[in-house]
């Protein structure tokens, strides 16, 4: 099986180790992962901010890079949701591009979604260590409908104890440009999320979106907490 890996901007410049973890997982499962070198940004920041002309530029580029029939897999629920739902919306009045957008929309997967549905990874022998709790990122949960998959994977990791996070699906306050435009509210939400995480007694909080994880890490830092923040790919890759 072959997949195209969409790294995302945040992984590319801030969290390259998450991309590397994804590659290690694919290798383990005998999946040929291609990283198209020409990839840039999916355009979500522009789209969500209302700059739809700019978002279309990004989307057109994305669609030309991620052509073909192979699944597109990304370690981000939010960027996957942009391709899945945002693209068909952006090109609704352009029949030619709409067709291409719909093709991409149909073959884009968030990493945990792909691991569970296409590779049945949660049925394989996986291991890890630590007491972890899981934050359900909004776009992953609500826009992609990926609710159980990350938990199936976490529960499949032998040696990992999973403890529930109170109000796991409440927004952490990242919201893309929201964190820059309304930092006071973003910080308030991040610290509240941090308090919930600390209350679980977990040593690590796991998520599926680097944007949220970044904001949560800031919240935990503000609370002086030593709880580690990790992408689910890192935890899985570590135990391979």
């Amino acid at each position, binding site marked *: 099986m072959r997949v195209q890996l969409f*790294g995302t*901007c945040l*992984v*590319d*410049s*801030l*969290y*390259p180790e998450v*991309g*590397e973890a994804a*590659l290690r997982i694919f290798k383990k499962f005998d999946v040929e992962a291609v*990283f198209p*070198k*020409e*990839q*840039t*940004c999916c*355009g979500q920041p*522009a*789209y*969500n*901010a*209302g*700059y*739809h*002309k*700019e978002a279309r*530029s*990004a989307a*057109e*580029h994305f669609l030309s890079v991620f052509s073909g029939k192979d699944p597109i897999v990304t370690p981000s629920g939010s960027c996957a949701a942009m391709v899945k739902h945002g693209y068909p*919306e952006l090109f609704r009045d352009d029949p030619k591009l709409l067709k291409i957008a719909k093709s991409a929309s149909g073959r884009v997967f968030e990493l945990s979604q792909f691991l569970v549905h296409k590779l049945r990874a949660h049925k394989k022998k996986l291991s890890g260590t630590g007491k972890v709790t899981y934050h359900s990122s*909004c*776009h992953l949960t*609500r*826009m992609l409908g990926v609710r159980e998959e990350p938990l199936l994977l976490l529960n499949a990791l032998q040696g990992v104890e999973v403890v529930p996070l109170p109000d796991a*699906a*409440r*927004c952490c*306050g*990242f*919201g*893309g440009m*929201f*964190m*820059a*435009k*309304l*930092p*006071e*509210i*973003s*910080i*308030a*939400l991040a610290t*509240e999320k941090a308090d919930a995480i600390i209350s679980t007694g977990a040593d690590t909080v796991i998520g599926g979106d680097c944007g949220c994880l*970044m*904001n949560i*890490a*800031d919240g935990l830092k503000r609370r002086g907490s030593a709880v580690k923040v990790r992408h689910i790919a890192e935890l899985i890759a570590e135990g391979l």
Partner: protein
Amino acid sequence: MSTQTSLKFRANAAKALQDDALRAAMRNAADTFGARRTSAISTLPDFEALREKASSVRMEVLNNLPRYVERFTANATKAGAVVHRAFDAAAAREIITGILKDRGVRTVAKGKSMVSEEIQLNEHLEQKGIEIVETDLGEYIIQLEHETPSHIIVPAIHKNRQQIGRLFADRLGVEYSEDPQVLTKIARKVLRDKFLQADAGMSGANFAIAESGSLVIFTNEGNGRMVTTMPPIHIAILSIEKMLPSLRNLPTFIRLLPRSATGQAITSYVSIITGSRKPGETTGAKELHIVLLDNGRSEILAGEFKEMLKCIRCGACMNVCPVYRAVGGHSYGWTYPGPMGIILTTLLTGLENSHPLVDASTLCGACNEVCPVKIPLVEFIIKQRAHRVTEGFSPARISFGMRLFKAVVKSPALFSLAERLASMFWPVMSAMSGKDVAGRLPKPSALSFRRRTT
């Protein structure tokens, strides 16, 4: 609209975040309503099917709104009501003032109505020398405090019982108590006299039934029934989109509205008022006036945000909104807060008076999930952001950044260069954007993922 402060949303919110009592009250209330809603919805056999049904009924009404308004007007008139049409806030205020002045009314007992807040009716009537007494407990509290509602169904949600206890002690000269039962009894005693003295009653309405000309009002305190039946005159004000085709449609909304709003299976009272008191009847207002307000609805109806008019004002979207829960309703600076408030405020008052509000969402989608009539709230907020850009209300530095983004996003070489520059100049960028923004981001990795893989 002189009192609207939506343009200062960020400052309003930052101030609210410093108010510990407000934050605790909001957390408590939003979580209570959220949990109650979840448990009330779980008793329904098929919530999704019910939402779908409610949505399609509301949509059908909107598709034929002028016809339903006409039918309602004819049937309400037949039942003895006088129906007035008000194109805007000023017209509605004038009609209501006229009715009250002509009949020498001095005191009005009023039930809850967000539309009356929208047109600032109370201030207007007070200026004309008419005393208007809010009789919904929450509304009464904020009237005593000279505040506006911070939630569309729980107007005093931002206050705790200690604050209400002090308010009652100050304004009513009673002994301080923070016992909700004692406080409710105090209010009841004061208000009971007002019901008896009032020359007229005022109310809003949750729905208007086109087929029978009836008004439907959901309340919990019984005050709604008293203001509409005890005084000789009853004036109801509602916006035109509140129509339902027939009483047969009502059960769907009886199931959905209280559950979505307060998590109740049904409110304590559901009043259906059809016309004025008829000969031989012993209750009901002798004179019923119904003011149908447009105030921007027809314009919304004709545009791409038409579905917003499906809204049945349950408040579920605000109860689950992380932003609303953190900053409270007053931060939004106008009548309607939360996700529905962002959209309605922008539509009804214009981007020029409200544009920062469209940023007041993380786009988390919790609102979309609970809306009982399936309004695409998140999609509408994104659309309004697009309008802000095209209409020139987006900050220049962001537009500049987006132009740069457009230039580099199609060129992998430039994109990679931009990433490298960001990494190199990180200390400068971080210092320039301040600790609340860039100070919260980790330093970019020295070697990007793309350069590691290729």
